[in-house]
């Protein structure tokens, strides 16, 4: 009599790395066209105002707004596997330096992304400053 072997169910364990934003395995199609399909992070994530940073509070007060306003749509995403935030004015991803330690949760990361993006956009070194000097009409 042949003994029945207890077949162990093989379940694929989902590693933490697979769940991290920007490190999701690309589909065959995405690899082929060299372009990602869809957003790499939750663009609809609403901000948690309890996580707001002192710099952002000052920015809101200076502009006379009631809340984060346009920054509600800013999230920390990934570019080529590195944390980055998209600058709509420069139309490119701005990479977060390695020296900045990032917290584990997305809400805190988003607040850091917002703060850094404001600093980047308002900097005299922003790429648009040169364009403005060259093309400004009035």
């Amino acid at each position, binding site marked *: 009599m042949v003994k029945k072997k207890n077949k162990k169910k093989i379940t694929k364990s989902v590693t933490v790395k697979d769940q991290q934003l920007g490190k999701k395995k690309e589909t065959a199609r995405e690899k082929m066209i*060299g372009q990602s399909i*869809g957003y790499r992070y939750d663009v609809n994530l609403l901000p948690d105002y309890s996580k707001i940073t002192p710099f952002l509070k000052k920015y809101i007060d200076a502009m006379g707004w009631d809340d984060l306003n*346009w920054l509600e749509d800013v999230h920390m995403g990934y570019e080529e596997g590195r944390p980055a935030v998209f600058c709509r004015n420069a139309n*490119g991803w701005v990479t*977060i330096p390695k020296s900045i330690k990032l917290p584990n949760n997305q809400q805190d990361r988003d607040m850091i992304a917002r703060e*850094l993006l404001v600093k980047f956009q308002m*900097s005299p070194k922003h790429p648009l400053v040169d364009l403005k000097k060259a093309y400004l009409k009035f």
Partner: protein
Amino acid sequence: MANLKNVTKKTKAQAMGMHSEVLTGRTQQKFFNPDEAENFYYFGTYDVDFNKRTDLDVKDMTAADANKEIDNLMSQGYGTIVIKNPQGKHSIGVGILNKLNLIFEGSLGYFGIGSCDGPIVRINGRVGWSCAENLMAGKVVIEKNAGSCFGAAIRGGDLICKGSVGARTGIDMKGGTIIIGGDAGAFTGFMMQRGRIIILGNVGINLGDSMYDGTIFVGGEIGSYGSDAVDAELTKSDQDWLKRKLKVAEIGENFDVSKMKKIVAGKKLWNYDNLEPTEKKGAI
């Protein structure tokens, strides 16, 4: 044959080397400088004071002249400008990339408050087509009704209409929040890609047609859903955000947000995969 000389006059941009750079890759690689000084305004914008107030009567001005005068007043440090007699002029209050408190005492025509980034605008009247088109940041409040294409292609900021709006509100919007106190017309949120629309009243047919992403909240009845617009669960986070946002919008503070419907993209139209020919691989 005329003896044409080769004109080699360089533009300012060419002189700065902007036409000789080699453009490679899909995106720019830029890094933050975390030690950047604390600065809240774009380079080259005016330092204005909200407490410094002035009036501007635009009755006998063209829209272009009125816009230039607003710019001139900002350059003098005026942070609050009251526009008298706008009389339904088109394209007025456009291209303001500054912090500013702008108040219109009357109604605007087409394309008012277009391409703005930062100002707080209040219109004590109605607005025509495409109000606040391409708004980047700031807050725009319309006390009465608005025409079609309200907030077309906005990227950020809060756009509030206390009355009702026409068709195609938030068409192609890529961010920001549109809040409607009354009803909205057909094709609201047509092709929206990001951002949020809140409608406290009823909405017409084809709501959120072909939306790629983003969220629509509706308090009243929905005429019909557009292609790929589907219902989603209203979460506690959504309700908290709605309460806070309605307070900012100065409307519907006592509105029961728990009964609102939430509409999102079904993502069945994400067919770029099939549309992208393999031959393009080399070009990307």
